């Protein structure tokens, strides 16, 4: 027994009137999910803002360790990747699936570049003893700073700042990896011939997810690297 029928080359499930109805429902579900993403990251932003107001000097001490140039490069990388994912959707609409897959591939590559830069940022901090929360090794960090001739850390709760740093950038990084996997799946499906000009909903949804990832970073970059 079939639960879908084909209209204009698209499998439309029987509880939908037509292709448009099915797509509208899918789109609405995708946007509802994106609201939860905004609220999740937003909660962390609110937490950061409030504790920043509570411990301004400590946050300034922590922000010293973030290199804005790496954050800047990552911002450009993600903006470009948002562009390539939207180019991918454009080619889906034009029924040029090989080009669409190529565009998605470039997007994944951008994600790789982002994560590589993130890897270097994290390992550099670990090397100095900067771990999240109460795992932060203040003695090791101050030893490093003393050797480099830089001012020592005066705060006693620096782990709070880096708790926020690792949680927010880490959660974002997890989303980048998730997005890359989903993009890979879409790329595979596009090459397999699952999509056509009337049906590429998966690419739509994954594309919007990727833009959320970019959106979060657009705010995360000034928060962590510039304002501190």
């Amino acid at each position, binding site marked *: 027994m079939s639960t879908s029928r084909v209209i204009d080359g698209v499998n439309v499930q029987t509880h939908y009137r037509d292709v448009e109805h099915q797509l509208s429902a899918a789109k609405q579900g995708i946007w509802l999910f994106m609201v939860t993403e905004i609220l999740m990251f937003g909660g962390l932003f609110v937490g950061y803002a*409030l504790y920043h107001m509570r411990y301004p000097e400590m946050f300034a001490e922590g922000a010293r360790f973030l290199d804005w140039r790496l954050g800047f490069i990552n911002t450009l990388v993600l903006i470009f990747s948002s562009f390539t994912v939207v180019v991918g959707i454009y080619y889906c609409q034009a029924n040029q699936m090989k080009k669409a897959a190529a565009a998605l591939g470039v997007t994944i590559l951008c994600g790789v570049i982002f994560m590589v830069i993130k890897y270097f940022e994290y390992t550099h901090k670990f090397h100095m003893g900067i771990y999240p929360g109460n795992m932060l090794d203040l003695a090791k960090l101050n030893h490093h700073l003393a050797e480099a001739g830089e001012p020592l850390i005066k705060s006693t709760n620096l782990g709070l700042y880096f708790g926020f740093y690792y949680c927010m950038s880490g959660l974002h990084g997890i989303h980048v990896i998730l997005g890359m996997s989903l993009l890979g799946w879409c790329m595979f499906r596009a090459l397999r011939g699952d999509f056509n000009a009337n049906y590429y909903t998966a690419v739509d949804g994954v594309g*919007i997810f990727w*833009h959320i990832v970019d959106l979060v970073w657009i705010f995360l970059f000034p928060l962590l690297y510039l304002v501190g």
Partner: protein
Amino acid sequence: MEHTENHEKHHITPLSVYIKVAGALFFLTFLTIGIHSIRAYLAGTAPFFAFGIAAIKAYLVMAYFMHLKYEVVMNRVIFGLGFIFLALLFAITYLDIWSRVALTSPL
């Protein structure tokens, strides 16, 4: 005909629009960095510039890349509500902290 109805809401943004938006986003990123480099002269207003520009970039991504400009009103309202509730979270939490009175122990 059913075929034309399917494409009614199927607005296809031309590639040139995407390229222009991407260009604007790149420019705004460089602008953010530029302002960051002169923040010493901005007397503490630098964060407003940084987040203000970020808000513009966010709008461009949402309106054009996420295609919200051409979406049905319902989806725009749904997504917008997320930000509104976020603002509410921030406002009420901030009010709580701001209105706290420090208690000093008499002991």
